[in-house]
């Protein structure tokens, strides 16, 4: 093993550990915050008994879930059933590998980072459908089918929205896009016409990809019990639950990097800015979650294929026109 390979592996492992643990810790705190936030939105107070102001609630939740008995349905496909939850956790974390948390804190600075993120994000369909199919449960199967239809459909607006910063910055590397924004403008601010709508498009598609309200049709607990997680207990359920939050958190980080200049910001070190932006987007997801109601299946598909897809294509060409014809757009 030559030294370059060795250092790349060590770099990836060390930063990977840091980033993974940071993401997991922040989603633990995020869950606590979400519960407090949702509580206050509904004139409640949220968790209070576990630790000071309920801060240890996520810890209590995870410990409780890990202690639960592991039940595998007799009719399930055991291998797929057991493999799906860890895969979901891995794929949801994997996208964080190329997100620059500061100018230096980046696990792997790929020159095709954006494509990698989209590819890994698309892989989330696999464990979802593995779980839905292998459970051999009708609710899980319906949930899995809906999840696939939804993720696959919203993959298209997601790709198109991601293409706007790529066109504007002329780079497929996430850190390259952030660098461009640091030297020019945040894309959500300027050029505002493809920039801000592209962010909103990305945000909507991200909500749909991570099955968040108002796009939580695959879970739809009022119709499908718990969707794909119907048959899962204990640690395996925890992994799915975790994967959902990680997906949202990493999606927020990507949105912050692509549209809000990532680690770029005055006064404070870059890491602070990146974390602040990521958390703000993350919180807004929960704000949406506790405010809106679920779409119907057909509304969801109409919105995606009839509205968002043409809109996304239009934004891409608006961005391309900006680069081509706006004075100073290409610099």
């Amino acid at each position: 093993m030559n030294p370059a390979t060795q250092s790349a592996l060590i770099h990836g492992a060390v930063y990977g550990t840091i980033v993974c643990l940071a993401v997991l810790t922040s989603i633990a705190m995020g869950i606590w915050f979400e519960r407090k936030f949702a509580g206050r939105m509904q004139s409640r107070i949220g968790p209070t008994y576990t630790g000071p102001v309920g801060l240890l609630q996520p810890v209590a939740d995870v410990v409780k879930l890990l202690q639960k008995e592991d039940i595998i349905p007799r009719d399930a496909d055991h291998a797929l059933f057991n493999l799906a939850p860890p895969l979901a956790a891995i794929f949801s974390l994997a996208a964080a590998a190329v997100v620059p948390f500061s100018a230096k804190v980046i696990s792997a600075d790929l020159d095709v980072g954006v494509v990698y993120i989209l590819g890994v994000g698309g892989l989330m369909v696999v464990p979802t459908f593995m779980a839905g199919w292998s459970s051999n449960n009708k609710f899980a199967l319906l949930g899995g089918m809906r999840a696939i239809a939804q993720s696959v459909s919203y993959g298209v607006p997601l790709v198109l929205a991601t293409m706007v910063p790529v066109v504007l910055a002329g780079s497929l590397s996430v850190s390259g896009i952030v660098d461009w924004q640091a030297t020019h403008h945040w894309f959500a601010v300027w050029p505002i016409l493809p920039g801000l709508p592209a962010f909103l498009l990305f945000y909507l598609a991200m909500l749909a990809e991570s099955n968040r309200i108002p796009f939580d049709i695959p879970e739809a607990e009022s119709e499908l019990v718990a969707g794909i997680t119907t048959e899962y207990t204990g640690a395996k359920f925890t992994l799915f639950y975790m994967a959902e939050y990680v997906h949202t958190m990493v999606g927020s980080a990507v949105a912050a990097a692509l549209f809000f200049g990532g680690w770029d910001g005055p006064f404070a070190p870059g890491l602070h800015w990146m974390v602040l932006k990521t958390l703000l987007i993350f919180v807004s997801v929960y704000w949406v979650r506790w405010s809106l109601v679920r779409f119907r299946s057909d509304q969801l598909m109409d919105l995606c294929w009839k509205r968002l897809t043409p809109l996304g294509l239009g934004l891409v060409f608006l961005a391309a026109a900006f680069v081509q014809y706006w004075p100073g757009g290409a610099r």
Partner: protein
Amino acid sequence: MGYFIDSLKAMATTFRQIFRKPATYEYPEVIRPRAERLRASFALPDDENGELACIACMACEKICPSQIIHIKSEGKRESPVTGKKRQYADTFVLDLTACIGCELCVQVCNSNAIYMVREQEVPGFEREDLVLNLERLRANAKSKTAAWAKGTVLQEMQELPKAEKKPAAEKKPAPEKKPAADATAAPPGDEKPAPEKKPVAEKKETPAPAAPADATPAAAAPAEAAPAAEAKAAAKPDAEAKPDGEAKPKEAEPAKAEGAKSDAAKEASA
């Protein structure tokens, strides 16, 4: 587009909620204000001699719609305090899990030996935690505040108005007025009318035959009082025009009396 604007409105609404005071009361530490007539559990009080007031007459056990009261008594025996022979409830079990809070047991109790209290039982982990036995019921009488319907309040509310005395009141209003007023002032029930003005109202009606016996059935149905009061103005000339009719005055006159009574009650309460 409209959907997005509405979504933003919804999000603004939830955001505004954040700054409002939470509606939560953290129950064991903070007890929220209880409703005036809240009744939550039961208590078995002692009588004036310091003994259990319950004499195991089984009235509450019989009337309980959910059949959650079970009393056993080992017969009469001498009271250690007064020396008189009386009956004791030796076991008294009340299953609060099935109680519907109708308070009938309190109503039927003739010895004021059971009443409801305002404070709930502490939540338990097992069903048995909410089955009250004699000790817990007696402890409740000492530790918890009674609901509003303690003693014979409910029984007095349910009593029929003293209709038999009305003819007497008609003839000699002066002596009847006072005791009647006293009797009605005692219980807090506001349904009981104060018949002070009634003799006055009846005096005007002297030409009508108005057999005293006829007044009683209508008087015993106070539910008709309100519509009757409205009908008073119309009924009055009618009654005067046909002094000969037996049926008409019979209807109209008690109605008038009731109307006057309810008017009087309103004035008394005001």
